[in-house]
C-alpha cells in the first residue's frame, strides 16, 4: 500500500469559548476521493483551513507522504508550494480578467520584467483542454457560467502541481450536467493518483463520487468509513449523532385537514432558478407545519420563496386562495410574517429599544407616514412582552442588552404584532436555553390552536415531532416527502432526510 498523502493526527483547534476541533484524525490516500461530512459547526471547514494554513492550530501534527517530520502551513501559498490546492465554494477568481490570465495571476511567466502573454495563452489553452473544457481563454471570466468558472478554478489548482485537491462545496452553484462534468474530471484526477478531499451537503453526490467518508460531529471525529460499509441512514445518524430508534417518540394529535378547507398558503410548483427546485406546499389554518432536512437542504429557501424574499421563477403562490405578487411588502400586507434564522443579521436592530423593535414590522405594514402613536406602541409592546414573558429591564432597554433567548422572543413579538395569518419561524429555538425553547414550542401550538398557520423550520427532529402536525422533508434543494399522522416518527423523518433507494436504507 502506498504512503498516504496526508496524515493529520490529534488536531485540536480552539476558538474563544469553543473547541472547534478536538483531537481529530484525518488520512488522505493517493488516488481516492475522500468526503468530509458533518453538520454546520462540525468542524469540516476548520479542519480544511488548518490543513491549508488559513488557520493556526494548537495541538496535533500533520505529516505529508511517508515523512515522519510534521509540517505546518502558515498560509495558503505555503500549502500550495507543498502541492495542496483548494477550490472554494465561491469562485475565488477575478471576473474582470480573461480566463487565461486568471490561471496565471500572481505567477505570470515573464521575460525580463515583461509578462509573456503568448506563453500565458498557449499554456492556458493546454490546461483547459486537459480538463476537457474547450473555451476561448481570451474572453473575460465573467462571460462564462459559474460552472465554467469553477472549472477554471480547478484548472488553476491542478496546474499548480497539486498532489492534493480540496473541493470545498464546489457543487452548490452548479446544475446537474455541470456537476456531472466536474465528477468526470474528479474521477480522472483520481486515476492520476491525486488525493481529493470533497466537502458537500449533498448526500447523493457523496455516494456518486467518493471512496471514503470521514464524519465530524461537534469538532470530534465521529468515524472514518469506506463508502460501501456506510448506508445513507447510518451516515445521517453519524452526522446527527444518534441512532434511529433511541428517541422517545412524542406525537401531536392533529387532525389532517379536509379537502374542502382553503389553505392559508398554497404553493404550486414554486421554484427558484439555481435555488430550490419546484415544490408544492399547502398549509392550512390551525396547523403547525414542519420543514425538516439537513442544513443546506433548502428549508430556508422554501421559506424565503413562500415569503417572497427570493422571487420565484416557476409556479404560483396563493394566500387564502388569492394569487399574490411576490415581494416581502405584499406578503406582509397579505398577513404573512417571516421570522428569519439569523437574528443578528436579519432580525434585531441592535441600537433600538425593545419597544421600537417590536413595533417595527407593524409600522412597516401601516406605511412610513402613518406613525403609530407612542401610547399605542407602548400598548402593543407591553402586550407581547407579557404574552411571551420577555425578560427586560424596561421596554426602553436597547435590545442588544437582552439575552439571546429574549432577543429571539422580541423578534417573535415583532411578527406577532402584525397579527399574521401565517407565521414562518426559521430555527426559532437555535442557541437559546431549554426553558425558553419549550415556551416557544408551546406558543406555536397555541397560536395554531387559535387559527394561525405556522411554518416551523428546525434542525431538531424531536422538537418538530413535538410541535408539528405535518412535516415536509427537504433534501438537496428539493422537497422529497411529507409525513403526517401515524407516519410521524424520528426514524421515518431521518430515513426521508437520508433518502436513497430502499434497498440502501
Amino acid at each position, binding site marked *: 500500500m502506498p504512503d498516504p498523502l496526508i496524515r493529520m493526527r490529534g488536531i485540536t483547534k480552539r476558538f474563544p469559548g469553543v473547541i472547534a476541533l478536538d483531537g481529530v484524525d484525518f488520512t488522505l490516500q493517493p488516488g481516492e476521493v475522500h468526503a468530509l461530512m458533518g453538520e454546520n459547526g462540525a468542524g469540516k471547514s476548520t479542519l480544511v483551513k488548518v490543513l491549508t494554513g488559513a488557520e493556526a492550530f494548537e495541538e496535533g501534527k500533520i505529516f505529508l507522504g511517508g515523512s515522519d517530520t510534521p509540517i505546518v502551513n502558515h498560509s*495558503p*501559498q505555503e500549502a*500550495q508550494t507543498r502541492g495542496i490546492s483548494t477550490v*472554494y465554494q465561491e*469562485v*475565488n*477568481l*477575478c*471576473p*474582470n*480578467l*480573461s480566463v*487565461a*490570465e*486568471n490561471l496565471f*495571476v*500572481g*505567477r*505570470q511567466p*515573464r521575460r525580463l*520584467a*515583461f*509578462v*509573456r*502573454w*503568448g506563453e500565458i*495563452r498557449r499554456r492556458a489553452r493546454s490546461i483547459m483542454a486537459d480538463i476537457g473544457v474547450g473555451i476561448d481563454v*481570451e*474572453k*473575460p471570466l*465573467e*462571460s462564462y*457560467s459559474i460552472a465554467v468558472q469553477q472549472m477554471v478554478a480547478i484548472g*488553476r489548482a491542478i496546474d499548480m502541481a497539486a498532489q492534493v485537491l480540496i473541493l470545498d462545496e464546489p457543487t452548490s452553484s452548479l446544475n446537474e450536467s455541470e456537476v456531472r462534468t466536474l465528477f468526470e474530471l474528479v474521477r480522472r484526477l483520481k486515476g492520476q493518483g491525486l488525493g481529493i478531499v470533497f466537502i458537500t451537503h449533498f448526500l447523493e453526490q457523496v455516494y456518486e463520487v467518493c471512496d471514503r467518508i470521514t464524519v465530524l460531529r461537534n469538532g470530534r471525529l465521529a468515524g472514518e468509513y469506506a463508502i460501501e460499509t456506510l448506508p445513507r441512514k447510518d451516515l445521517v445518524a453519524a452526522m446527527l449523532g444518534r441512532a434511529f430508534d433511541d428517541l422517545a417518540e412524542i406525537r401531536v394529535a392533529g387532525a389532517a385537514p379536509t379537502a374542502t378547507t382553503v389553505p392559508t398558503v398554497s404553493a404550486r410548483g414554486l421554484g427558484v432558478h439555481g435555488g430550490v427546485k419546484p415544490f408544492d406546499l399547502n398549509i392550512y389554518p390551525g396547523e403547525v407545519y414542519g420543514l425538516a432536512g439537513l442544513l443546506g437542504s433548502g428549508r430556508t429557501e422554501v421559506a424565503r420563496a413562500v415569503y417572497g424574499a427570493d422571487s420565484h421563477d416557476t409556479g404560483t403562490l396563493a394566500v387564502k386562495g388569492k394569487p399574490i405578487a411576490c415581494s416581502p411588502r405584499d406578503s406582509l400586507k397579505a398577513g404573512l410574517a417571516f421570522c428569519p434564522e439569523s437574528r443578528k443579521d436579519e432580525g434585531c436592530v441592535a441600537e433600538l429599544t425593545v419597544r421600537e423593535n417590536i413595533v417595527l414590522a407593524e409600522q412597516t405594514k401601516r406605511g412610513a407616514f402613518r406613525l403609530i402613536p407612542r401610547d399605542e406602541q407602548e400598548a402593543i409592546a407591553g402586550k407581547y412582552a407579557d404574552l411571551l414573558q420577555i425578560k427586560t429591564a424596561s421596554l426602553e432597554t436597547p435590545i442588544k442588552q437582552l439575552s439571546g433567548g429574549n432577543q429571539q422572543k422580541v423578534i417573535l413579538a415583532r411578527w406577532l404584532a402584525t397579527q399574521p395569518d401565517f407565521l414562518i419561524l426559521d430555527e426559532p429555538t437555535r442557541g437559546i436555553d431549554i426553558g425558553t425553547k419549550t415556551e416557544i414550542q408551546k406558543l406555536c401550538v397555541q397560536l395554531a390552536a387559535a387559527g394561525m398557520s405556522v411554518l416551523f423550520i428546525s434542525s431538531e427532529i424531536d422538537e418538530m415531532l413535538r410541535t408539528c402536525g405535518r412535516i415536509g422533508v427537504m433534501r438537496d434543494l428539493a422537497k422529497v416527502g411529507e409525513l403526517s399522522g401515524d407516519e410521524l416518527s424520528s426514524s421515518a423523518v431521518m430515513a426521508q432526510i437520508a433518502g436513497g433507494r430502499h434497498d440502501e436504507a
Partner: protein
Amino acid sequence: MMRASKPWQGLKANFYGNNFLVLITVVLFIAIYVAGVFIYRDKNFGSLNSFFDMLNSNPGLIIIAAGMTMVLISGGIDISVGSQVAMYCMMFAYFMENRQANAYAMILIVLVTGVVFGLVQGALVAYLNIQPFIVTLAGMFFARGMTAMISPQTIDITNADFMALALRRIQVPFGGYVNAAGVYQTPFVYLSVVLALVGLLAVYAVMTWTRFGRNVYAVGGGEQSARLMGVDTKRTKLAVYTFNGFLTAFGGFLFCLFSTGGAVEKAQGFEMQAIASAVIGGALLTGGVGNVIGSFFGVLVQTTIVKFINFNGTLANGWSNIVLAVIMSFFIILQSVFAYVRRRRE
C-alpha cells in the same frame, strides 16, 4: 515572426470585453471631431494646428487622468490630485522666483515630493484600511493648505531654464494653414505634450506587461480573490498610490509648463476632470476595469467639447459643463446596459 506578433496579441486580449467601452470612446471622439470639422469648416477647426492646441493646453491632464485610471482600476480613488498640482506649481514658482532655485533641481524635488505624498496616502489606504476617499480627501485639504503656506500670492514664473522648457516647440512640417493675414501657420506641439504622451505610453506598458500592472487589475477585480491567488494586495495598493503620487507630480510639472505660475486657487476641480476622463475612457469606479489609453481619449472628448463651445463664440461657457454632464451620463448608462446585457446572456 511569431515573437514579433506577441505584443499585439496582448493588445488584442486587452481590447476584449469591457475595453469595448474604450472603442466607443474613440468612435465618439472621432464623431464629435468630424462634426466640428464640418460645422466650423470656415474656422480651421480641422487644421492640425487646432488639434495640437487641444494637446498643448492639456499635457498635465493627460498624465493625471492616466494615473487616476490606474487608481480607479485598483478599486480606489484619489481626489487629492488637483490640490497636489496646485502645490507643485506653487513649489516651482516660489522656489525658483523667490529663492532662486535651479529649475532642474526643482523638477527632481517635486517628483520626490509626489512619491512621498503618494507613499503616505498609500500606506494609510493599504495598511490601515482607511477608505481611499477619506485618505485622499485629507490629502486634498493638506495640499491646498500647503500651497497657501508656501505663498498666498500669485507668482508668475520667469526662470529662464524653466521657460525654455515651457516654450520649446516641436514643429511639424505639414498640415498647417494660412491665416487671415496671409502668414503660414506651422503646426507644433510643446515639449510638454511629447513628455505627456511618452509618459502615457509608459503607464500603459506598465499596466499591460508587468506583473504589478496585472496585479492592479486583479486587486480591482476582487481583492479577496487576488489575495487567495497569491497577490500581495496591500503592497500592490501601496504601489498604486505611490506610483500615482509620482504621476501627479509629473503631471503637475507638465501643468506648470503650460500655466507657468503658482496660485492657491490653481487646478481647482482638476481631480474631477481626471475622474471624468477616466470614466469616459471606460473605467469603472467599482474597479477592475479601465484602460489608460481610454482616459487619453476621455481627455480629448472633454477638450473637444470646450473647443466646440469656444468656436461657436456665442454660447455661454456653462454649456461645456452641461454637455460634459450629458456625455458622462451617456457613458454611465452605456456601462449599465453592457452590464445588464452580460447578466442576461448568462
